[in-house]
């Protein structure tokens, strides 16, 4: 669960693309490609996390006082269940990370999952913005590479004629 800051990293400075040579441009492009893949991966992971929180949130919604005394199959292992009965419909235990579980009432649990979904969605938006930014730079670099290539070809032609 990494928080994403959109502030530029220290030591970053503007580079005039037109001053770089072809090799440097290619290197920069490769670096950007890598960064964009990282963004895609993070987005994927966040999406999964978001889905999990939403699912849990929906589950708490279904925990009404009516459920008290109803039978339920409790998974002991992934493939073995024993019958059980819901005795407490007012509280749930929530995994809040790093091995800690907190008991919350239904309202608190709903609020918790809502907050988590909002948090994850915010992070996703941030990453999306960064991704758009990167792809803009990527495009600019590609254009610059093309321009330089053409200039080089032209120069070669002139030299030949």
């Amino acid at each position, binding site marked *: *669960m*990494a*928080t994403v800051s959109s502030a530029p990293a220290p030591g970053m400075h503007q580079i005039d693309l037109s001053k770089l040579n072809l090799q440097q441009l290619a290197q920069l492009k490769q670096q950007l490609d890598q960064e964009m893949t990282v963004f895609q991966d993070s987005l994927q992971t966040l999406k999964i996390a978001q889905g999990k929180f939403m699912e849990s949130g929906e589950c708490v919604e279904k925990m009404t006082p009516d459920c008290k005394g109803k039978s339920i199959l409790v998974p002991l292992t992934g493939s073995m269940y024993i019958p059980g009965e819901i005795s407490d419909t007012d509280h749930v*235990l929530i*995994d*809040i*990370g*790093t*091995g*800690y*579980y*907190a*008991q*919350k009432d239904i309202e608190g649990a709903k609020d*918790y999952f809502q907050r988590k979904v909002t948090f994850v969605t915010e992070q996703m938006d941030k990453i999306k913005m960064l991704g758009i930014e990167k792809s803009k730079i990527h495009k600019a670099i590609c254009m610059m590479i093309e321009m330089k290539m053409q200039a080089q070809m032209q120069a070669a032609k002139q030299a030949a004629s």
Partner: protein
Amino acid sequence: MAEEIQRKMQKELEQLSGIQKEYRKAVAQKQQLDSQLNENKAVKEELVLLKKDAEVYKLIGPVLVKQDLEEATQNVTKRMEYISKEIKRADDHIFALENKQEALQENLNKLKNDLNKLKLKA
């Protein structure tokens, strides 16, 4: 003479690739620490939000053990301090490796130039 320079270059290159490997490892480690710190931060926020009499459990192996809220909060805070220190250490390590890499790169470039000059002369 040229052979000697080539040998030197070979050695420096090996060194450089070793440091690059170490560098990547250090960066990955730092990223892991970062994510751990962030997770702990989220847990702490959650613990602070809890009511005073809320029950908190800690997962130890497959069992949940009841824990004092106060104790849990202290525990997480301590862990955050520790991780922060580790991150600082990792940062220093990464910085040192960066410097080493640069120095080696410069050296290599110099050797390459020497070699080229020798070749031109020959």
